[in-house]
């Protein structure tokens, strides 16, 4: 529900974001960014509770998330502006440094997020910064021909 999303992410109240899918329990933000809509991806220490590629460090750190996206062809970068020959992802983390969320950039230059078990939305990068997801701590990009 829009009201629920906007109460969790108040920046959306002043944004022209769009809901792009119904709620779902099957996949989360990391899976969405990785192109998997069948599994819940998270480096949970209990290996049976969430999917995480076995070759990637399995702990809830930014280092492990960067390692994951490096394995998918992305490299760290500074800029979040859209480039036609690259696609970008953004990693969010809380103040304690623990990753909270990942989003992917669309060809429009806007961003796409699966919000936990809520809906997918199209949004500006800052729209979901705040108490729920913290802030963007890493942008990564890869050539579009790797997707």
């Amino acid at each position, binding site marked *: 529900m829009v009201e629920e999303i906007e109460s969790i992410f108040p920046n959306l109240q002043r944004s022209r974001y769009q809901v792009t899918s119904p709620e779902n329990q099957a996949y989360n933000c990391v899976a969405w960014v990785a192109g998997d809509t069948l599994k819940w991806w998270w480096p949970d220490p209990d290996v049976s*509770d969430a999917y995480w590629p076995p070759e990637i460090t399995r702990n809830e750190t930014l280092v492990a998330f960067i390692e994951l996206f490096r394995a998918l062809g992305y490299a760290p970068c500074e800029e979040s502006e859209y480039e036609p020959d690259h696609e970008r992802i953004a990693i969010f983390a809380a103040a304690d440094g623990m990753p*909270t969320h990942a989003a992917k950039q669309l060809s429009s230059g806007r961003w796409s997020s699966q919000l936990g078990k809520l809906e997918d939305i199209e949004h500006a990068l800052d729209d979901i910064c705040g108490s729920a997801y913290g802030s963007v701590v890493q942008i990564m990009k890869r050539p579009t021909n790797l997707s």
Partner: protein
Amino acid sequence: MATVPARKPAETIEERFDRLAATWRSDTRFLSSTTKMADHPAYQEIITMGEEVVPFILRELETEPDHWFKALRAITGAQPVEAADAGNVPKMAKAWLSWGREHGYQW
């Protein structure tokens, strides 16, 4: 983040479970972290309720598959989910529902 609403005096086990489960669902809907979900105080309180809540958790899994797996494992000690199905929430739920039926639970 979350506070657990006070327990009502004449609450049944089922009512208490339903109240805690509703709080947990509402407070964790935006999370991706399965560890943060399980750290929620309502979820932890459900685990402390023990074996009596297993049928209610299985009922929840059947109607709306969700991340009840840590609670079920903590309460029962069982692990019926195949390694290859880790992260596939519908398949994980199905494995626990089969386990529940095999162990005589009704919900």
